[in-house]
């Protein structure tokens, strides 16, 4: 934007050009300064820790946890002490990569189930009477009012072998002549809880998107010959894609790295990559290898987020937004 200077309408006032240049420069500087706080934030809390991890991933573990010194002096000779061992270990057995893929699978499945469950709910809230909307949204975020771990312990009670759910289900399986099932310590329990914890993160962005839709477009579509299904599939759904991408990122990333839920509900079968990373840092005291696993996870997450952002942006421009 160019400022109109006094006297700018009279042709070529001698001071006009230099002053305008100054203003443009100041404006550019202001725009750059505006980017400073988020840049600084990213640097401090994302780039710097990641670089520290990268540094750590090439070092040896310390004897009692932590890291061994990255250099040593022997006969007044200074030597660096770095290694590729930690990275090679990732590929030595299929355990770690397998676990990574399994975790990706869990996170994807969680995202998918959350989308399927959140969509009808978000649509219902967005189309409900304005008076009830705030109340319904409040109900969606209500679980946040109690502690995350407490809610997982609640699921332990629900899934426990003495719980009503398991006993009830096993009455059914007995009647059908199938072996009794155990809900606790299984991937089913982990995914159920992952979905439960992350569902609001899908509902809220989806609602924010759907709430903005112009209902007159649906009238127009119906007027032009679309039935109810076509109205949804051709008008509502394509316009809601940016909301789905936003929700998917918010669900996918935390469920990929989570360790508390598989720790408490997963047993040995439901273990995820987050558990192994935690194990490296806490129980095994192998910080370098833990760093390797963390970096791989961060890398994959970043790639997927970039992909989703790109998809979301294309859908966004299609929306004309």
């Amino acid at each position, binding site marked *: 934007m160019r400022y109109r200077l006094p006297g700018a309408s009279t042709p070529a006032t001698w001071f006009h050009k230099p002053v305008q240049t100054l203003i443009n420069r100041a404006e550019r500087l202001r725009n750059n300064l505006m980017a400073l706080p988020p840049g600084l934030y990213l640097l401090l809390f994302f780039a710097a820790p990641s670089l520290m991890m990268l540094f750590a991933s090439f070092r040896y573990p310390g004897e009692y946890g932590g890291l061994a010194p990255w250099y040593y002096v022997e006969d007044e000779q200074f030597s660096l002490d770095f290694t590729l061992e930690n990275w090679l270990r990732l590929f030595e057995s299929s355990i770690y990569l397998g676990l990574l893929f399994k975790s990706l699978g869990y996170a994807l499945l969680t995202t998918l189930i959350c989308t399927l469950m959140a969509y009808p709910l978000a649509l219902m809230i967005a189309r409900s009477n304005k008076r009830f909307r705030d109340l319904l949204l409040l109900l969606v975020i209500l679980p946040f009012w109690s502690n995350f771990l407490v809610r997982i312990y609640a699921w332990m009670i629900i899934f426990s072998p003495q719980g009503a759910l398991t006993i009830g289900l096993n009455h059914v399986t007995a009647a059908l002549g199938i072996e009794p099932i155990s809900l606790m310590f299984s991937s089913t329990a982990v995914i159920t809880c992952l979905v439960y914890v992350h569902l609001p993160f899908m509902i809220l962005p989806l609602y924010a998107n759907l709430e903005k839709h*112009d209902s*007159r*477009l649906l*009238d*127009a*579509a*119906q*007027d*032009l*010959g*679309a*039935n109810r299904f*076509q109205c949804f599939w*051709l*008008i509502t759904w*394509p*316009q809601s894609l940016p909301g789905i991408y936003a929700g998917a990122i918010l669900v996918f990333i935390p469920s990929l790295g989570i360790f508390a839920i598989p720790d408490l509900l997963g047993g040995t079968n439901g273990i995820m990559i987050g558990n192994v990373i935690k194990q490296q840092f806490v129980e095994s005291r192998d910080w370098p290898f833990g760093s390797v696993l963390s970096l791989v996870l961060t890398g994959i997450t970043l790639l997927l987020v970039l992909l989703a952002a790109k998809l979301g942006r294309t859908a966004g421009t*299609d*929306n*004309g*937004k």
Partner: protein
Amino acid sequence: MLEINAVSRSFGDFVALNNVSLHIQAGEFFTLLGPSGCGKTTLLRLIAGFDQADSGQILLDGKPLCALPPEKRPVHTVFQSYALFPHMTVAENIAFPLRMAKMSKAEIAHRVTEVLNDVRLPDKAKHYPDALSGGQKQRIAIARALVNRPRLLLLDEPLSALDAKLREQMQIELINLQKEVGITFVYVTHDQGEALALSHRIAVMNKGEISQIDEPSVLYSYPDNRFVADFIGQCNILDAKVLSGNEQKVNIAIAGLGEIAATANPEITFKSGDNCALTLRPEKIRLAASLEAEPDEALFSGKVHDMLYLGDVTVYIIELANGVLIEAMLANDAPGRTRLFDTGDAVQIAWRIDAGHLVP
């Protein structure tokens, strides 16, 4: 072609439509005109199928429409907000009703090109609606509604979002387009000028009822009642009492002005003692500093109370002896910067006895 028989619709205590009946001919440009809240949009929604009448019947080509959902009716609507789909290109928007009708791809492509030429936007096919101007969006909305050749096109105040210049241009385009495609248009507006300019016939609505249905020129010159006279154009409405009269001429008394003659309204027989009103258009009034009354003219003296300079004409508000204010209009067609009268000037006005129109 479209018959609306005794249709009523209420929302709670509010009566939106009260026993409305009208018939629209095939190929007609028909306008529903009225102030906001008069029920014109409710009637449009009933025809489109977005709402159901409490009682009465709507027939299209003799078949009742009420049982059909909106998507099954051969009726398309041009919405006030255009309602173009923002995630589809212009071509996809226009193709939408054709896709819904399960037309072949080739036929769709052909029709879309054709209708884009009709609305003179052939190079906008790949644009998204956001990249279009208001007038272009309007044309695309009309193209989308017309492409499937509906029996009836409903237009809900389609030009109200455009600026005055563009609106006039779109009015001319609409008239030509309607002539070309020959589809029956039902047009809703609160703008009387637009209604007069566009329509073959106009139904003036007030408080859920139809006040008058006529051609624009008849509506303007021979309003049936005070509401129509007042709503359409500028009009002086003089309250009067009938003194005597026959089929040709009625003598009326206007309080404070005395007795004058007026041409009878062939539709209504007035008895002496009836209340009536003389409706008189400003441009039918002669205005000068001093006037000689013609044999069949009424003449009054007054003074200029207010004036509105409008460029092409100046509207003078003349205060008569009894305090009645009358609006008269003079064209500013004299050469130079003439200024005929000033506020407070003494003037005389006169009108022919057949210039006014008597309403109950």
